């Protein structure tokens, strides 16, 4: 199915890429915007693009829908940009793609446009810098957080150990089959869950100089905690090793788990789904810390960037600036629960009405968010790590051996693409 769809898209792209450059050049004020366009997200973006056009007579924006699966969208973008297609002019990209596209020279340095970077969450701005230049602006923020059942316990766990104890108690005495559920399938989600456990123990994947330090003591402790939660203490079901976001949400939504690690999108669904058994009986908290670290949230979210070959970067920036406006962000928060990337908005009552979650809870989590390694080869590093983590969690390898192997492979990769810090 995936392959077929891929071929289909390829055909479409070839056809469209052949036709559109010509129109683009004929009228410099035709922009194309590529991004998510399914369901409510599609409605919102259509409406916002229309408002933008009404406010800017003479500018036309075409919406180019792209696949919703991150991998497929990424492949498509790489094919477009690598072929130096002048469109789409504005791209919705994942936060971890910014350095990759920037280093390849595919997206524009935004500094010349003078963006007001101080108005956004610093972590989100940092994740969009490459070689000290800014290449994208944060559109909305995704953060990993802990969902907990208010009917099973009186407060959120203070640290990972307490989380384990509370999860075991809930499983043994409250008739909940699972203590804690998270995304454990071999995919990007697993890396974000690991990153949060890693931060809890005070570890990092790459250090400030770009050296691989994932196999440090903290890394081994974090991975051992995750594995033991499945195999020794058994408050995490082994089934999570095949689960992504939605399976995890369904388990929690069916009332089968005391804790869940998930993104903000789940909140509204848990609250509003007619078949939700936990509506009104859960809350969110930051992921807890452990000894030696701090509570950590993986930073995700979407960014807006400009195609380096765009024929009209100035107008493209105008569009980005419009989409990042408070009114637009508020609309996204209200309709799909996405967190704005502007901290000031969290002080406004308007956002309190718009977000289902308490805005202070949300801001607390965002302020603890750490980006994944900011490097052009992030996807490859992530793949190496995914395999190692999954091997350790499925008991094919000990955590320390798995992480050591992964660190060696990651270091070799950085060396090969000449991104390793000198002197290592």
């Amino acid at each position, binding site marked *: 199915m995936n392959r077929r769809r891929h071929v289909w898209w390829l055909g479409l792209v070839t056809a469209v890429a052949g036709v559109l450059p010509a129109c683009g050049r004929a009228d410099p004020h035709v922009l194309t915007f590529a991004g998510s366009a399914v369901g409510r997200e599609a409605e919102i973006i259509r409406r916002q693009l229309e408002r933008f056009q009404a406010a800017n007579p003479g500018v036309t924006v075409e919406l180019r829908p792209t696949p919703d699966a991150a*991998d497929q969208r990424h492949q498509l973008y790489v094919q477009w940009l690598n072929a130096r297609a002048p469109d789409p002019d504005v791209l919705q990209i994942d936060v971890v793609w910014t350095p990759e596209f920037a280093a390849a*020279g595919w997206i524009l340095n935004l500094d010349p446009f003078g963006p007001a970077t101080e108005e956004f969450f610093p972590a989100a701005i940092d994740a969009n810098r490459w070689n000290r230049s800014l290449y994208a602006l944060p559109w909305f923020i995704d953060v990993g957080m802990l969902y907990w059942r208010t009917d099973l316990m009186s407060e959120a766990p203070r640290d990972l150990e307490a989380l384990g104890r509370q999860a075991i108690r809930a499983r043994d005495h409250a008739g909940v089959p699972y203590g804690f559920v998270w995304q454990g399938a*071999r995919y990007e989600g697993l890396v974000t869950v690991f990153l949060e456990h890693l931060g809890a123990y005070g570890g990092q994947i790459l250090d400030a100089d770009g050296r691989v330090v994932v196999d440090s003591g903290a890394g081994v402790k974090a991975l051992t905690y995750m594995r033991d939660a499945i195999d020794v203490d058994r408050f995490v079901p082994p089934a999570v*090793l095949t689960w992504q976001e939605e399976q995890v949400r369904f388990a929690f939504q069916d009332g089968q788990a005391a804790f869940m690690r998930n993104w903000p999108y789940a909140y509204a669904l848990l609250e509003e789904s007619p078949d939700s058994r936990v509506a009104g009986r859960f809350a969110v908290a930051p992921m807890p810390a452990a000894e030696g670290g701090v509570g950590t949230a993986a930073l995700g979210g979407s960014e807006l960037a400009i195609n380096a070959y765009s024929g009209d970067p100035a107008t493209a920036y105008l569009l980005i600036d419009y989409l990042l406006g408070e009114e637009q962000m508020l609309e996204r928060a209200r309709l799909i629960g996405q967190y704005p990337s502007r901290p000031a908005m969290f002080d406004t009552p308007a956002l309190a009405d718009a977000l289902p979650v308490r805005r202070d809870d949300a801001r607390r989590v965002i302020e603890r968010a750490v980006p994944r390694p900011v490097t052009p080869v992030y996807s490859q590093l992530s793949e190496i790590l995914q395999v190692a983590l999954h091997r350790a969690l499925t008991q*094919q390898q000990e955590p320390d051996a798995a992480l050591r192997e992964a660190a060696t492979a990651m270091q070799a990769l950085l060396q090969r693409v000449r991104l390793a810090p000198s002197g290592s």
Partner: protein
Amino acid sequence: MSVRRPQPDAAGWRAEEARLGWWLTLPAIATIGLVAVVPIAWTLWESVHLHDLRMPWLGRPFVGPANYIEALTTARFREAVGHTLIFTVVTVTLELGAGLALALALNRIVRARGVLRTAVLLPWAVPTVVSALVWRFMFESPAGVVNGLLVAAGLTTAPPTWFADATAAWLPLCLADVWKTTPFVAVVLLAGLQGIDRSLYESAQVDGAGAWRQFTDVTLPLLKPALFVACLFRVLDAFRVFDVVYVMTGGGPGTATEPIALYTFTSLLQNLRFGYGSALSFMVFVFTFAGALACLRWLAGDTLLDRAR
């Protein structure tokens, strides 16, 4: 003055025929060249270059055998070769066994044979992606049908998490493939069975051969060509297995069930390492091509020529 062509002698005529023959096959040869030889040559060219779509700053330098050396020294590649071989041996053996049994049974049935044969072919007609998805749902944890049955039958209280267990994951994978392709083997073998002269069995009976003796001395030797064909097709298919694994396990847990084709796909289309991925593809191509050639030789020498004689 008119030029009269000299009457062609026999040799000249034959040469002309041969030349005409070449002209007539030229379009076919050109087509094969365009759709087979050119892409293969291109892949070979890519495979000796560094070409990473995500890292244009590295350029596309010639790197000689570096990509091949990297593959051969990468544990994940060697494991993928091992997984592919295991998968091929296990599934093809099971498919040939089950297919033969099915063919023998079908061959015995006289009534409603057409309907039955169609029914048997059904799994083969289901798209692999669909059947693989169905099998995955059946083995899903914790709510899959299989685990439900295992518990209901009292066989276990804690059924395995199939796709999170490096060993257990092979079972649904192989089952799905065997279920899907056994019908193909059965139909090929059934055709072979129907080509065997009935009178041979009658004379064997007259000579006092029992059912087993008839099977080993009459059926099996005469079924050899069909068995070879089925085996060849299945081995080549199993060696390139992709879809069923992609859908069911994605090569996991870890990379415990990852075959070569999936590893190549990941390197080439997900990591966009065109040079390295091409080296992997080229190795798979050489393996399968050599295998196919050897089988064809063997098959032709053994049976087709016998028939022609």
